[in-house]
């Protein structure tokens, strides 16, 4: 039965995956360095987890049969402690390595994302020291890092553009910073990713990455934003 399940999974998952990976909110269709690093992490984890599951299932299958002499040390210390510690350490190293790369280090362009039930206010530095405020789209230049300063007016929300980076919470009374970078110009879907009440499902936004040559001239004023 289990083998049937696994075969089903082996056939159907890639099929679904191919269909679904390239989607507007897909973490598996990265369009920026952060999301790309994390997507790689996932594929490596998936391969490792698949191997480990098979290994444990094989051990389990082999247990059905005549009793045999087993070494307690080998099972508890060998497999339980050392084997698992080795795998966990490797994962920690990979995680910290990727995490370090995602951190905001040198200074970058700053924009603001202010969340409220159930809309967003984005603030960008405009040409000649002006400030441009928009309500639906966050505008960034492509190909360069941008720090998004995230705040909230009421309850906790979360700023998430899956194809560009992981999420960061918008917490009233605090300010969080998320580094974002789009590899190329385009429109990237984003949404609130922390349950925030009755309008949660539609608490969405977009990130528009512009050709750096046109930025910030190409950022429209709020009034000029096309309706949904």
């Amino acid at each position, binding site marked *: 039965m289990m083998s049937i399940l696994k075969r089903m999974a082996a056939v159907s998952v890639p099929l679904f995956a191919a269909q679904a990976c390239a989607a507007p*909110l897909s973490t*598996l269709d990265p369009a920026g360095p952060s999301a790309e690093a994390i997507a790689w992490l996932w594929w490596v984890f998936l391969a490792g987890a698949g191997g480990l*599951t098979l290994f444990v299932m094989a051990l389990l299958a082999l247990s059905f049969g005549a009793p045999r002499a087993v070494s307690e040390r080998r099972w508890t210390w060998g497999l339980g402690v050392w084997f698992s510690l080795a795998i966990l350490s490797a994962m920690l190293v990979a995680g910290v390595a990727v995490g370090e790369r995602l951190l905001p280090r040198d200074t970058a362009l700053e924009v603001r994302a202010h969340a409220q039930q159930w809309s967003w206010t984005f603030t960008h530095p405009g040409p000649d020291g002006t400030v441009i405020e928009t309500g639906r789209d966050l505008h960034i230049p492509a190909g360069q890092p941008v720090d998004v300063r995230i705040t909230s007016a009421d309850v906790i929300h979360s700023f998430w553009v899956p194809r560009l980076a992981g999420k960061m919470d918008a917490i*009233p009374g605090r300010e969080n910073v998320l580094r974002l970078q789009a590899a190329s110009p385009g429109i990237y879907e984003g949404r609130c990713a922390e349950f925030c009440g009755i309008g949660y499902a539609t608490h969405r936004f977009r990130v528009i990455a512009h050709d750096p040559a046109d930025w910030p001239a190409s950022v429209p004023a709020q009034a000029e934003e096309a309706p949904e």
Partner: protein
Amino acid sequence: MTENSMPPADHLANPPQPALRLHRELTRVWSNAPGIRGVFTAVNHSTIGLRFMCTALIFFGIGGLLAMLIRTQLATRKGAFLDTEIYNQIFTMHGSIMMFLFAIPMLEGLAMYLLPKMLGTRDMAFPRLSAFGYWCYLFGGLILIGALLMGVAPRDGWFMYTPLSGSTYSPGINADVWLLGVTFVEISALAAAVEITVTILRMRAPGMKLTQMPLFAWYILGAAVMMLAGFPPLILGSVLLEIERAFGWPFFDPERGGDPLLWQHLFWLFGHPEVYIIFLPAAGILSTVIPVLSRTRILGYGAIVASILGLVFLSFGLWVHHMFAVGIPHMALAFFSAASLLVAVPTAVQVFAWIGTMWKGRPQLKLPMLYILGFFFTFVMGGLTGVMLAIVPFNWQAHDTAFVTAHLHYVLIGGFVFPMMAGLAYWLPMISGRRRIKGLGELAFWTILVGFHGTFFIMHLTGLVGMPRRIDVYPDHPEWEMLNLVSSVFSFVMTFGFALFALDCILQAWLGKHARRDPWKAPTLDWAMALPPPAYNFASLPRPDMTGSEYAGGAEVALTLARGEGVLPGAPRGHREVLVTGIGHASPQHVAILPANTALPIQFAASIGVFVLMMLFGLYYVALAALLPVLWFAWRWARALVPAGSVPPVEIAPGLQLPTHYDSAATLTGSGLACFLFANGTFFASLIFGLAFITLVSPGPAPPPLEGQAAVSAMLIAGGLLAAALASLVPGRALKEVSEAGSPLRLIAFGLAANLAALAALAGLAIWQLGDPRVHAQTAVRAALLGYVALQLFITAIFAAFALDQARRGELAAGHLGALRHWNLWQGYTLAIGAISAAVIWAQVLSQ
């Protein structure tokens, strides 16, 4: 008999008696009252344990039904089946029910039902407390379900994040239902944790060393200790949030210096250990059933005990991994990430010890083993996705998506439900006394397994392609529709499987043939009795030669015990007698006489229920008045334990007399009180954590200056402390005086007065010196601290008043120390937390 000497086994043997006569004698004393009276007055652990499990399974059904509604709504992208308001209530209730009304009570019920049988005793340490916990659980659960039926159920998600759950964004009583209802239910968790701990440590059959007791008891002990430390932060958070909602004290309001993250810390400080609280008893089932069904002994008993202790310790150090996206400093992220990975090591040790056990033996593919294989397959995957989520960058993408929904169901259904079903399949012949009907159980297992993986395996992908949890429609995401439809279809397959499982249980109890004794040839004491077990479990208690090794003797000892050849045979004095033993070596110490059937538990729980309802309806003055009946029943609870006269020692074996607990020092009640004070201390520590967090970490406006004068504050603090210190000398002296010169009436009266004086100083401090708690979170949390100290002083005063009443009645005499010792314990605790609180508040006065 000294406290720690162990008489040789043959000295503990009694001459054989007719088993039937013993059975009748014991049944008369131990069984529940007949008919409807028995429903309300039963305190027997088998009855209460079964009630917990049956009620939990009914709530599991309700929670499952809600899950079906969720899956129906999500099956298509423009689901119009539920409106958003109702949908939010349903997913909140699904999570809350499964956690608080199913998983925890289920494990409590199983522990209560099995522990006394496995440990070789006749009941839990505090039978009335078991029943009281059950009624609190039932009433609290009914409040939650009632709210669901009336359409005012909580709707802010099962972890109730502030400010969404605060009064501004959640007006109405929905959130209050959660805070008050769940806290009411948690009384039962604390009660169960206290009595489980005491039962395991103090009621094991003579000679069953701590280091040799069945692994199941180790697992339950670990879970109980975690409950003592894990539930207080949740209860504190709920109390604070309810006070904020009801009276406007801004603990979590950022505009008045509060911090929404304080709620998250308190909640996950409970919430992550909670996962292991649920997992440990399930692992206890596995460690019990796997060796029996592999016809061998467990591999690595010591390593498993060490991993349990490791899990208990580590699981309190990784709650922040639920908060990786809230903007925690980088180093803290790395620390909590590493801790979250490390906790996988003790889990891996157990998994490999179990598989090693199967290699060592000859596993049999009986029904419980099928569920165990289902556990391995599911839990290994759930554990691996858990390890992935511990890696911060991956967590930032997967957090709050369907990936997490999938992960937590793999862990909870794999790590709790499958082992629990293995356990039910294993112990149902004991519970019902009947054999199972062949085939139906296997069909249920395969249906559940296929349904489960069909529902949740694909859900990992749904999350990775961006679907967040808790949304009700996704009109612009056709790419999620197929994935969701697959999950929804298989979820109905899974439901069908659970229905088959329920049918199998009902048919077995109804139509099954009578089971043979010890159908699995198990080596543990729980099978060394008739099926279904008699109300008293053992006609005589197991001797050291039946419990001395890693495992107890098994079924061959059943007859010996039924003939009264063990310790403390029968019930010749007409009392419910059990043996109390030492913690380490289980050497016999005294005989405890347990309370018999009584309606006090339901009355006490109902009086608390009235208070909870008054709070819920916002009738705060009525609620205050409703505390009077609560006090009255608490008083009667303690009065019912006072013996009518002197009780002679009991001969537990020829020539071996033990005193009763009335004449003993280290009583069960004393141990229970110590456990409760440990939980109380965790509550206090959480409060101090909250105060430090609000003062040092939270951003936001500065607190207003203190209103009073520092000198007056200092005088009130010093005066209160002095009164409390004087009071703390009293119970100790009174204990001495009782044994030397009779009734110390005036001394006790002085102790009562000193406690009341300290209470008055505290009231003065609160009213004149510390300002309006509604103004700022720091003022509020300080007032909460004062309120906590005042409550402890008040309880101490009640202890003193109780002792005074006993002295007045002439009940205190040498050897009969009444409430004095417990008063002493509580008074010492109160002085300690009073001194710490005084130092903290004084530091705040100075810093302004």
